[in-house]
């Protein structure tokens, strides 16, 4: 499988990438690690006229301690997120979810920003970012803006990113004492989650993000409210599928997905000390 023909431009800087985006408009797509975009292009589900390669912008690959939050450059590779000591000690849930992405080869190339910008409801990382109440920093012609994870994922493969904008940073509150759990249910080692649940409990406050339970990565608000009001894991998890509209596919029907969401959320809450 070979992608449809495209023009290739190597961005020299983030500013250059934004200028190229402005120049090429909706013809262009940004290429980071390529592990979401290239498979789509090989299947001819995407055929951008221009690829703007931002994969060599090393100054967008970093992990910084910024007081109450960690700031992670959008081009930080999964392997770095999985093993970085600041991330494993401060936001262990993100490292654990990242360790479940694809396989080692994929994690050597794929980037955190790329996976989030892809906006796939079956991806592990958006759910983790939602549970952790993180946000993304977006750069564009009118400057930088910060968008909470809840407002970033809009629909199926659709995010708040405009065509001339670029995701440059991910920000996550530090929570070294949090208890967390990442539950992923799949049939084979490297598969996408049929359903997944990212759970974190920090200072008595609970965060739950669900994988593959709606057209977009989604927060299990009813579970959070129940846990914060003192419900047990079993009681709270009963509400995991509330408001979710999962799709049916070869792996699972709608009712089975809802069942999995309840079971995985309960396990996640129990593993997080609830």
């Amino acid at each position, binding site marked *: *499988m*070979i*992608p*449809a*023909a*495209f*023009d*290739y431009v*190597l961005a020299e800087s983030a500013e250059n990438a934004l200028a190229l985006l402005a120049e090429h408009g909706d013809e262009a797509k940004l*290429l980071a690690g*390529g*592990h979401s975009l*290239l*498979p789509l*292009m*090989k*299947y001819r589900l995407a055929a951008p006229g221009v*690829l703007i*390669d931002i*994969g060599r912008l090393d100054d967008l690959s970093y992990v910084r301690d910024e007081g109450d939050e960690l700031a992670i450059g959008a081009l930080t590779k999964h*392997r770095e997120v999985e093993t970085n000591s600041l991330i494993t000690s401060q936001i262990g849930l993100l490292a654990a979810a990242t360790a479940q992405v*694809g*396989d*080692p*080869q*994929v994690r*050597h*190339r794929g980037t955190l920003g790329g996976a989030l910008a892809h906006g796939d409801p079956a991806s592990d990382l958006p759910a983790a970012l939602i549970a952790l109440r993180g946000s993304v920093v977006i750069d564009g012609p009118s400057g930088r803006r910060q968008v909470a994870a809840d407002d970033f994922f809009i629909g199926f493969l659709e995010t708040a990113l405009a065509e001339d904008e670029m995701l440059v940073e991910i920000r996550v509150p530090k929570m070294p004492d949090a208890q967390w759990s990442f539950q992923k249910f799949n049939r084979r*080692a*490297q598969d996408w989650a049929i359903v997944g649940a990212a759970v974190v409990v920090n200072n008595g406050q609970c965060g739950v993000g669900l994988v593959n339970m709606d057209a977009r990565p989604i927060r299990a608000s009813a579970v959070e409210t129940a846990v914060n009001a003192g419900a047990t894991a079993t009681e709270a998890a009963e509400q995991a599928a509330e408001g979710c509209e999962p799709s049916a596919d070869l792996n699972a029907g709608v009712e089975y997905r809802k069942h999995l969401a309840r079971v995985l959320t309960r396990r996640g809450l129990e593993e997080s000390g609830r």
Partner: protein
Amino acid sequence: MQVSITINGNLVSHDVEPRTLLVHFIREQAELTGTNVGCDSSSCGACTIHVNGEAVKSCTMLAVQADGQEVTTIEGLADGDTLHPMQQAFHECHALQCGYCTPGMVMAAVSLLDEKPDANEAEVREGLEGNLCRCTGYHNIVKAVLQAGGTQ
């Protein structure tokens, strides 16, 4: 466009379309056919090579993304007639049946031990999750990687 990649220490430079996949550049431009195309969708790992020392799936990377980088393929592991310890271990443990997955399996295993030299059996099995053996010869493959880990 002109793409120049150092493959197994040799600079290979060709004019290719931007959509050329790295695995095709390796097989067709560099004429190194040890790297196999399996599923062609980054699942099976048959096309695993090293880019700057890290295992990647060359079916899911454009040749132009490797421009100016260092690539190692299965042909680049042996030192003359002396097999790389991982190749030797695969040989001794009979860690291949049809052999199709073997180049990718060996490259993934070398990268795995680079990152985790003392990997135990569970870690080896998990570390090779991106490589499929359709003969299901995993038992001896894992044995070989453990043996190579002990001798490296």
